[in-house]
């Protein structure tokens, strides 16, 4: 088998659309939580020079230096001004449109347009937020980008029930899932590698700091101190888990262990540091990328063309991605 054939077989491995259902529903839910939690702060975070916390135009001016083509809320506010809407009205309208897109994604109604609208508006908010944005925003953008270009609608969407579409090519579904899987491997490998390069991850100092500095100090410092003896082991565990994820998530013997461990790590981050949004988006991306198809649906994913289940098992291949 030539290298190109091997690569093609790996990249275009047929898959069902269950992962896509999970991604669509999960991203819709994450977006909804993101918007609901910011409902009282939306105008302060994204308001103009006089009304906002910092003033959106400052961050948008910096964005323009990078590229004038990166979407931003300023475009929508300017558009609103053309039809006589003030910024005070335009910004809540953007919030409402994004919330509607999130609800449509959860239901799977007009999945593709909802994914495009959600991607564009979330990206505009993340970019106009400038220094007020953090890692979770980028990860939501990544998820929405992959959702937007994926072959929607999936079979668990209302779109499918109301307007039955033709079956999507399983190879295409597999291709889109593969991008997400490899991207996650990059995220964990480089995240783990940079942690391994910091001395504080080997002696527990970094975990101590992460759990005791505000605003991540949800746990009383006394509780964290009572864990002091296991912090070095936990820190090393995080480094090893993240770095090895890219390698151990693929073999069938280690996949479930690594997936469960990484999900537990994110649940832990959410509960002990209050980074709920970050934890949720990582859980959604991980489950969409690597959760076994039968976990989501009770079905087995389609096999490569001309291959039977027995042949696949005989060849020592896993049915899972």
């Amino acid at each position, binding site marked *: 088998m030539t290298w190109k054939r091997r690569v093609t077989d790996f990249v275009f491995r047929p898959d069902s659309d269950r992962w896509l259902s999970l991604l669509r529903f999960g991203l819709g839910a994450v977006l909804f939580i993101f918007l609901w939690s910011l409902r009282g702060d939306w105008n302060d975070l994204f308001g103009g020079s006089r009304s906002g*916390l910092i003033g959106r135009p400052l961050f948008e001016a910096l964005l323009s230096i990078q*590229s004038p083509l990166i979407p931003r809320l300023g475009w929508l506010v300017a558009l609103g001004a053309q039809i006589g809407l003030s910024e005070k009205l335009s910004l809540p309208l953007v919030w409402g449109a994004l919330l509607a897109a999130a609800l449509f994604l959860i239901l799977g109604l007009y999945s593709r347009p909802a994914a495009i609208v959600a991607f564009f508006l979330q990206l505009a908010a993340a970019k106009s937020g400038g220094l*007020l944005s953090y890692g979770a925003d980028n990860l939501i953008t990544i998820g929405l980008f992959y959702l937007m270009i994926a072959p929607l609608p999936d079979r668990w969407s209302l779109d499918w029930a109301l307007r039955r579409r033709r079956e999507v090519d399983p190879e*295409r579904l597999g291709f889109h899932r593969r991008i997400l899987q490899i991207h996650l491997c990059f995220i964990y490998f480089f995240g783990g590698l940079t942690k391994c390069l910091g001395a504080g991850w080997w002696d527990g100092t970094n975990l101590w700091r992460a759990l005791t500095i505000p605003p991540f100090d949800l746990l009383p410092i006394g509780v964290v101190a009572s864990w002091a003896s296991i912090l070095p082991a936990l820190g090393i565990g995080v480094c090893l888990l993240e770095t090895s994820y890219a390698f151990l998530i693929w073999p069938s013997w280690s996949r479930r262990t690594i997936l469960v461990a990484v999900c537990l790590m994110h649940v832990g981050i959410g509960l002990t540091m209050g980074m709920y949004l970050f934890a949720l988006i990582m859980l959604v991306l991980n489950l969409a990328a690597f959760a076994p198809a039968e976990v989501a649906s009770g079905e087995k994913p389609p096999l490569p063309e001309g291959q039977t289940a027995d042949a696949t098992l005989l060849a020592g291949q896993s049915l899972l991605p």
Partner: protein
Amino acid sequence: MRAKRRDSFLACFAAHLGLVALVCLHETFWLLEHGLTVVPATSSSVWQKLDAVPTAILGENLAATNPYRRAILTYTNATGIEVGYGYFAPNVPETHALVFECHYADGHVEYQSAAVRSEEAMLRLTSLVEQIGRTDYDRWREELVRRLARSTWQRHPGVVLVRALLGSVASPTIADYRAGNRKRTFKCLYVDEFKVDRSTGAPTTP
């Protein structure tokens, strides 16, 4: 799927993930080059040479208006891949805090911080204060602090002078905590003073 279509998908796949890898490599080499890791600083020149590859491909040495650089930046920003994933790495630094000393016309003084309503917005505000604390560019820091001072003044209209105190906050280490030292310390790094201009409603440097 047809072979031609497959090939074009494969090319997009390689280009997109290639950019993800380059951005991550660039960030990692940068950390190594600047001696921010356990790797000895003597190897800095090696990392600098290695970093030249992603830097060149990402067009970071080109002029800000260069079309290639802008195209790369537009794509990476639009797909959320413009930064690496070294969260809380290589080390978790001390955090920063920004406190406003608000002076009222009657002479009394109150201490305030920039306020938001939700925990999610607080995480964003923390991210902002962190970056203000880490910047080496005084005018940029002062401008951001001035804007936060203005939003504080808007919530407290009686204020006539705002003194912004930006500093690092150190939590006790494990050893400190065991020795009975359980208090956080605030080390003031910068003090900026703003007088409220009644005509424009904006804080200005006196």
